[in-house]
């Protein structure tokens, strides 16, 4: 039988290609375009090559913003993930209590970023805010506009309050899907409570936790509205994170070239960290070659 090779079917992916072009490639290429040129007006531009990239990578303000950003993301992940797992383990499994707790836990997730910032802005005010006033009454000189420690602490508590429920919900659904037989087998094997968590619950939560950690990493790495509303990046630049630096540069100073280069670096960092994390977790589950 003669087989006729005909690759016309490839044409069928054209609509998809067009869609992807509009949704991803064209916007991205705009940024790439700006990042390698110095554009003055519609007719005047100079090709700059990697100049903007080099400049951005060597900018001390951005470097410290990047470090702050990593410190922030790492801190919130370290708090939110264990806390979320803990909450999920404590949540009731059936009856009206389960539904009630589920709704209570979910509430913070439903509040828009700006509103969260405003809520906490008022909440932490020394004169009328419950938390700010309360801490002062207790004798602690709490002031997020003066003390970088207070500002940092407050932003972290705010993020934990806002986003731990996401991890808790993901873990809760993961825990619900573990068949009863696993717990029964563990009892038969005389496993301790810790062993049940370590060898049954945690492994079964791996998949939801990977999603949770990735989402929380990307989210927290791009955090903007909440600290912007709460502290405006201050005091000084102690809570100025990457996206705020970017906004200032792109909108405030209209430095399109550098901010385009910076955007790309930003994007690549998130992509790289997510990929490394995902690959590392997936590799952990494989058998070690040659035996261990």
């Amino acid at each position, binding site marked *: 039988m003669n087989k006729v090779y005909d690759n016309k079917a490839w044409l069928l992916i054209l609509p998809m290609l067009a869609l992807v072009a509009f949704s991803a490639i064209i916007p991205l290429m705009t940024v790439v375009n700006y990042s390698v040129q110095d554009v003055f007006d519609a007719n005047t531009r100079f090709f700059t090559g990697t100049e903007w990239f080099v400049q951005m990578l060597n900018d001390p303000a951005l470097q410290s913003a990047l470090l702050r950003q990593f410190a922030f993301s790492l801190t919130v992940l370290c708090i939110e993930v264990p806390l979320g797992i803990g909450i999920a383990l404590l949540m009731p499994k059936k009856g009206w209590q389960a539904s009630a707790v589920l709704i209570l836990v979910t509430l913070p997730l439903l509040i828009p970023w700006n509103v969260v910032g405003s809520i906490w802005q008022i909440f932490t005010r020394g004169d009328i805010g419950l938390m700010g006033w309360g801490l002062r009454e207790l004798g602690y000189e709490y002031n997020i506009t003066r003390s970088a420690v207070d500002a940092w602490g407050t932003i972290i508590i705010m993020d934990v309050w806002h986003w731990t429920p996401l991890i808790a919900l993901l873990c809760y659904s993961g825990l619900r899907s573990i068949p009863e*037989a696993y717990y*029964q087998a563990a009892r*038969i*094997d005389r*496993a301790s409570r810790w062993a049940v968590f370590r060898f049954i619950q945690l492994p079964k939560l791996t998949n939801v936790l990977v999603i949770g950690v990735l989402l929380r990493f990307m989210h927290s790495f791009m955090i903007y509205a909440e600290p912007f509303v709460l502290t405006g990046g201050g005091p000084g630049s102690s809570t100025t994170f990457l996206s705020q630096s970017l906004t200032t540069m792109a909108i405030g100073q209209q430095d399109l070239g550098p901010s385009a280069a910076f955007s790309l670096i930003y994007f690549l960092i998130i992509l790289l960290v997510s990929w490394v994390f995902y690959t590392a977790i997936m590799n952990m589950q494989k058998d070690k070659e040659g035996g*261990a």
Partner: protein
Amino acid sequence: MAEITLRQLAHSYLPSPSGPEDYAIREMDHVWHQGGAYALLGPSGCGKSTLLNIISGLLEPSSGEVLFDGERVNSLPPEQRNIAQVFQFPVVYDTMTVFDNLAFPLRNAGMSETQIREKVLEVADVLELTPQLKRKAKNLTADEKQKVSMGRGLVREDVSAILFDEPLTVIDPQLKWKLRRKLKEIHRRFNITMVYVTHDQLEASTFADKIAVMYEGQVVQFGTPRELYERPAHTFVGYFIGSPGMNLLDVSVKDDQVRCGEVVVPVAPKVRDIIARSSSDNIRLGIRPDFVEVFETAQEDSLAVEVVNAQDLGTYSILTLALGDVTLKARIDEDQATPKGKAYIRFPQARLGVYIDEYRVETDHE
């Protein structure tokens, strides 16, 4: 190592059961002797798994006692009962290697690593898991996982008993057979009490020395596979075991003769007396299809029947016969000619059972 006694045991999943139908386990007494290989056979939903979970301690019975070597263990959790249980679907600890999985119960019991190693290697060898010992349990096939599940029960040589809850459901047929033999072998080698739950009579009779048949929350008969076949103690056993199941004829005594409908069934005088004395209106005669004698010509004490259908199954045929309004099955060997149209059957008295209110009544010639 223990003898497991169930005394007046009953269990209901409802908080306040009213009638017998509310009970998953109806009041029963039973003893599993040390070192026996037992099967618990019954249809789905008859309470087999409930009974198993009560023995292992995953479930506390509503009433009655569970005794291990005469000691009441009702309120002891499974951790303290020292019992192993293998579930229908494989349970493995995903992130551990096969070795660690098998070692897990021993480590929890605080055994020394050298002893653990020895024990795990022995069990892995028996289950043919040695090549997989270093692999992560997550990446095994379903039957390898189930072998690991079983292995975790088998490594504990000091267990009171190992309970199997339909452990071969997920296993391929040919491997099933192999694993069943493996279990028998292990039973012989370690002399552990094993209780094997199944709804498959073949599985039960190949594994067990004695089978407990459960029906509607009760053990209706406990005996060897042969006893279950030849002398079912309950109509359900007659129907559930053997293929096709036992023939059961509704009978009554009229004019001093035992009749099935209008047909007079010749029975021994003893049997007739038993039936005549009974006040129940649920009296049946039971006989296995292979014990029904089929003739082409009339014999002494034979009954005329209509041959409705003959099914040739190679070495034997199954005849469907009409005796008045009642349908019977009979099994004849291939060397006997298959009768057509009319035939004559006879019930050997020794093979005929009398069932009053579903239970067998003992007659003399047994």
